[in-house]
């Protein structure tokens, strides 16, 4: 019997020949990621009397949630984090001009195929786009990783999605993953690893693959994987010279389930409040009126996303009753979008261009919603009160659908514009 990608990586990281689903292993972590969570991680460490980390070269810290700090309290937290970074000798620190941690780790060449990565953020799973086994943990577990370099894992079952068919124009990987959430529910992959395969996945850019893996956590997944291919190696070649061992599932790997999907006639999808699996095709969205539109977050704010938004807007103006926030996923994305003229075009359409970072995605700052307001966003979650008032509503969609909706002031099919 062969092994899945998750089994192979966990076996290697725990020094075993092979591991079985359901087994518990103590694994060596190849890379640890923290963002603003560095603060609480270090509080736990220092209270426990630990002032040395297992390997300062294997920790990456990116400040993205409250950057730049909107309050004095947040400024104090950032001051504490900066001093802790120095005290622990953390080698890879991005304090500003960087962006959302996940985008930064991927585009700065920290992530390699076959790695086992723990991150103190649920969307750490995004790194599976490059073939890494990456998973989110909390800050106490991360303190344990900082101190020991190890973490226990339950070896997950794996489910496989085989996705075939060419995506229609203005339908993107965001629509694919929202469609899967709608069809299979938010617990479809609970405690499980997910492998995305098939011709559609092979055709996807690295950016589109990141979107898919990013949202795999919204169907409960522990790890998500794309196969390492020519696109992966080309992407890495521009970013790092570090060697790696790509891991591929065996052809006789044991899958708990295999789902076959044809996306050749897929419509743009919209997740309605307050659950990511409350999904309807845009044609059944009923023209919901919106007050705010957000193109941002680690899910969908890369160059191809901003390019698509600018294409859909095509010089038209944002509806006068709508605020459109554009928040590039990183400063590299921001600069590329400036070079391409995308930022100028979006700005002329009336978009508010914000600093690269998490922004309002998790209700932090830079675009909170008032009670009774509705927002359509390219982000990953639409839980009650996530972006502000518990009386507000949040709809999730692709960059194309969000851009189209910003123009008309109501949820709109981007294919008709």
């Amino acid at each position, binding site marked *: 019997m062969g092994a899945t990608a998750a089994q192979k990586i966990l076996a290697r990281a725990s020094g075993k020949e092979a591991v079985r689903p359901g087994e*518990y292993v*103590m694994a060596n972590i190849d890379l640890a990621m923290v963002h603003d969570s560095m603060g*609480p991680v270090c509080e*736990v*460490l220092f*209270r*426990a*009397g*630990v002032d040395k980390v297992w390997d300062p070269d294997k920790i990456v810290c990116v400040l993205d949630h*409250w950057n730049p700090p909107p*309050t004095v*309290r*947040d400024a104090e*937290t950032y001051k504490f984090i900066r001093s802790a970074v120095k005290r622990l000798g953390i080698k890879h620190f991005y304090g500003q001009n960087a962006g959302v941690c996940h985008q930064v780790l991927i585009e700065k060449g920290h992530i390699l195929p076959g790695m086992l990565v723990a991150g*103190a*953020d*649920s969307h*750490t799973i995004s790194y599976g786009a490059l073939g890494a086994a990456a998973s*989110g*943990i*909390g*800050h*106490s*577990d991360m*303190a*344990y990783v900082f*101190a*020991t370099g190890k973490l*226990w894992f*339950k070896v997950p079952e794996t489910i496989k999605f085989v996705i075939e068919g060419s995506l229609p124009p203005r339908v993107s990987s965001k629509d694919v993953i929202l469609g899967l959430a709608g069809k299979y529910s*938010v*617990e479809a992959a*609970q*405690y499980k690893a997910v492998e995305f395969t098939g011709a559609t996945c092979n055709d996807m850019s690295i950016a589109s693959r990141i979107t898919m893996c990013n949202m795999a956590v919204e169907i*409960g997944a*522990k790890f998500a994987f794309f196969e390492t291919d020519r696109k992966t190696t080309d992407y890495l070649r521009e970013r790092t010279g570090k060697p790696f061992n790509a891991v591929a599932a065996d052809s006789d790997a044991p899958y708990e389930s295999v789902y076959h999907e044809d996306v050749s006639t897929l419509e743009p999808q919209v997740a309605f409040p307050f*659950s990511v699996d409350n999904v309807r095709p845009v044609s059944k969205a009923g023209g919901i009126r919106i007050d705010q539109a957000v193109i941002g977050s680690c899910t969908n704010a890369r160059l191809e996303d901003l390019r698509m938004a600018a294409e859909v807007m095509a010089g038209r103006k944002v509806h006068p009753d709508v605020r459109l926030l554009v928040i590039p996923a990183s400063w590299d994305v921001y600069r590329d979008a400036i070079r391409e003229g995308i930022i100028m075009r979006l700005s002329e359409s009336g978009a508010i261009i914000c600093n690269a970072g998490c922004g309002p995605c*998790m*209700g*932090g700052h830079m675009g*909170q919603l008032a009670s009774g307001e509705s927002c359509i966003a390219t982000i990953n*979650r639409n*839980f*009650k*009160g*996530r*972006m*502000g008032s*518990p009386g507000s509503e949040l709809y999730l969609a692709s960059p194309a659908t969000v851009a189209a909706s910003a123009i008309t002031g109501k949820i709109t099919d981007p294919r008709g514009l």
Partner: protein
Amino acid sequence: MISNIKGRVWKFGDNVDTDVMTSGKYLNLPMDEMKGHTFEAMRPEFAQQAKPGDVIVAGRNFGCGSSRETAPAALKALGIGAVVAESFARIFYRNAIAIGLPAVICPGAASLGSDGDEAEVDLASRKVTDHTSGKVLEFPAFPDEMLKVLEAGGIEPLLKQMKNA
């Protein structure tokens, strides 16, 4: 390790997310302030009325969403003694164990009883009893890796023990 937890049942449904436990807009507050907003968007009375030993009983996928450890930490800070659910989202589950809050995977939890019942969780004999409905459910043992963390009272005391060992 506390073996008996007794208190009022706070009943929840499926897919309760960590944003409703501790909303993003309060994440930068100290826990003393943050805990007062726990479940604000869903059950605004919770933070005022929760008492030490109370038990959360929930359906499937409890704690889905963000990896924020403040979610179980706020429950613990309000005195919640255990969370009993049909199933948990994995990061919430890890986090609860990591801070020493027993998260009990208990098949049948959703049918245990009603909100406001008196319930008891016995970790040693692995039983949940709803004294109001009279229903008793058994739950499987914690694996050794988790038991070690729970018995230490969480990761922080475990790290202290390791430091002093």
